[in-house]
């Protein structure tokens, strides 16, 4: 039996914790909540009353009689609030609207962010979001917030730009620009962290299991869930696996180091290798346009998934570097589950899974103690957006969970 989770009645997080217990418990009684939280029945009754008044929790019936008065059954009012998740990707913007339980109500896919700068895109995002809510018949006041998943570091407004993969977005004050336009709170995290959070919140992975989500879009990111919370580090920038060095004599990276994973295995590197073969590039119809490298990568990945030998070799080479990086992560953190997510894995993800699985099975230091599960997120394209909606739900409704992330700062 799970021991009671002792929380003080004066804690600002008390209401948040009780709501999270209702969410994770499915159907619960006030007595059970008191037992699990360690709060008095009077405190639980008061908190539950406020949650019902706010439309977050509903009474759905009565428990079976055990001789005394039957207890009311409580559940999350899944249609009581909604959240929006937005994945900022060069290829496409994906909006996902979920209910309180994280179930998807609707989606919008629109052109990606590769064409315009953040200033223009924010105006478009506000318009698209407003129209989507109207088309889904969801009142603005029932939306708790918008989570945004994007690539790259969180450098803060005005910081020096470095990244090839995230360009101006890293140093763009998205929250400040978007919140007044949409009238909703905005919370941002990197796409890998969002994808990991989405896997966890949707219940696909238990809270007791630590795991990492490797996300591939333009580059790579690693979302790390530890004890049911996202690991964030000293500056909320955990997971820069794209700059793990996998070849000390490799090509110079824009970050200043040599042989970073991103330079050797990301879509841009795969496309560059394919373009060295004119016949292959012509046959696949590759654009040779640096701005369209993602579409070119998709063409290569699709051909590889279909068994085209040269494309298989290109993807396999990328996968070997990725597997080497993942093996290091598994060894450092003693993980037993790796989830691959993101549009980069949508077509040839199986090749990456097999290569990573092969390397960790053969070489992980803990291989004689436990297996390492390597699997693809389902569905890869929406993982970050779904997780971003979860991020918005957490921040608005269960801030104790959002704030509990492991930090590397001392």
């Amino acid at each position: 039996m799970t021991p009671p989770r002792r929380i003080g009645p004066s804690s600002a997080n008390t209401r948040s914790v009780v709501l999270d217990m209702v969410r994770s418990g499915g159907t619960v009684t006030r007595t059970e909540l008191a037992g699990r939280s360690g709060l008095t029945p009077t405190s639980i009754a008061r908190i539950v009353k406020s949650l019902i008044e706010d439309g977050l929790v509903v009474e759905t019936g009565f428990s079976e009689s055990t001789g005394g008065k039957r207890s009311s059954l409580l559940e999350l009012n899944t249609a009581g609030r909604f959240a929006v998740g937005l994945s900022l990707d060069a290829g496409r913007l994906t909006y996902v609207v979920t209910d309180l339980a994280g179930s998807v109500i609707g989606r919008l896919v629109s052109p990606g962010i590769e064409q315009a700068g953040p200033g223009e895109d924010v105006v478009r995002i506000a318009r698209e979001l407003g129209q989507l809510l109207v088309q889904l018949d969801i009142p603005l006041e029932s939306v708790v917030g918008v989570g945004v998943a994007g690539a790259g570091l969180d450098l803060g407004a005005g910081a020096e730009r470095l990244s090839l993969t995230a360009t101006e977005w890293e140093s763009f004050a998205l929250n400040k620009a978007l919140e007044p336009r949409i009238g909703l709170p905005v919370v941002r995290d990197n796409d890998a962290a969002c994808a990991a959070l989405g896997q966890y919140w949707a219940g696909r992975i238990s809270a007791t299991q630590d795991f990492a989500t490797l996300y591939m879009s333009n580059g790579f990111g690693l979302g790390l869930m530890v004890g049911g919370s996202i690991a964030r580090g000293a500056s909320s920038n955990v997971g820069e696996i794209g700059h793990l060095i996998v070849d000390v004599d490799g090509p110079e990276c824009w970050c200043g180091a040599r042989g970073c994973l991103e330079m050797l295995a990301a879509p841009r590197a795969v496309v560059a290798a394919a373009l060295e073969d004119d016949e292959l590039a012509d046959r696949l119809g590759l654009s040779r346009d640096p701005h369209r490298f993602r579409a070119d990568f998709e063409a290569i990945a699709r051909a590889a998934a279909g068994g085209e030998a040269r494309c298989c070799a290109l993807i396999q080479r990328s996968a070997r570097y990725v597997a080497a990086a993942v093996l290091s992560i598994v060894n450092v953190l003693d993980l037993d589950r790796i989830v691959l997510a993101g549009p980069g894995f949508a077509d040839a993800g199986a090749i990456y899974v097999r290569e990573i699985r092969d390397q960790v099975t053969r070489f992980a230091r803990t291989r004689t103690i436990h297996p390492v599960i390597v699997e693809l997120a389902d569905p890869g394209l929406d993982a970050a957006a779904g997780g971003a909606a979860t991020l918005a739900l957490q921040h608005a409704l269960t801030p104790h969970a959002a704030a509990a992330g492991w930090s590397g700062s001392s």
Partner: protein
Amino acid sequence: MTDAGESIGLVIRHGRDGDPVADAVVRAIAGPLLAAGLRFVTRSVTDEETELRTYRLWARVGGIAGVILLGVAEPDARIRLLRQIDMPFVALAPASTAVDYPAVTVNATAASTALAGFLDTHHSGRCVYVTSQRVPEPFGTDAAADDPAIEIVHADDVVDESVRLGAQASEAAPIALVVDSDHDAVAVLGALEAQGIRVPEAVALICWSDSLVCQSASRPITAIDRRGREIGTELGLAAIAAIHDESFGSVAAPAPVVVIRETT
């Protein structure tokens, strides 16, 4: 309301989400729409009444230039409504349906035909299709229904039943097992191997719908590619033609193919 540009809309009924073929279709629809400067909106609903209400809402609030129907019935209340509200539409329809609207048609027995052709050339012995349910139309799902060479077994627990059948097989008397879902196929593969049943020597395992799950299994699983990507792309192109009043008619979905991997 602010105008964020035109979208194509799709309403997804619960029960269809999670089907790998439907997922592939929906994912692929967006490609041609984005290339044409359109957006793609999807709405998940539980029942037909909510679906009809959604179309009325879209007609009222604007921004949706046309809709895609995944599957049609005869008669179909949605088609009647969409014509009433003057909303362009295209449909994914069974080939057996008489259509007088733009459609991509799917032959419901095509996957079964592909499977039968594969078995003729690659397998000798008994073939059993183990299923816990009938997969909903319209993706070509009359699994082996009219092929007497393929036995159909309905079972609540596909894994247990598959292991029971597999235990009766041997390399001298092999059996081919076909299962509905990719996750079931992975579970069956693991259970057979845990029982020491040799795959593919004694048991050939085939999944009815190919997916990344089949492709990335510990041993990649032979599966039927139901051509969800191509169907989705065709639907996207048909939707673009429909909203521009261009003639499209109906096109047949490409035929499914068996993708041979390590379990057969």
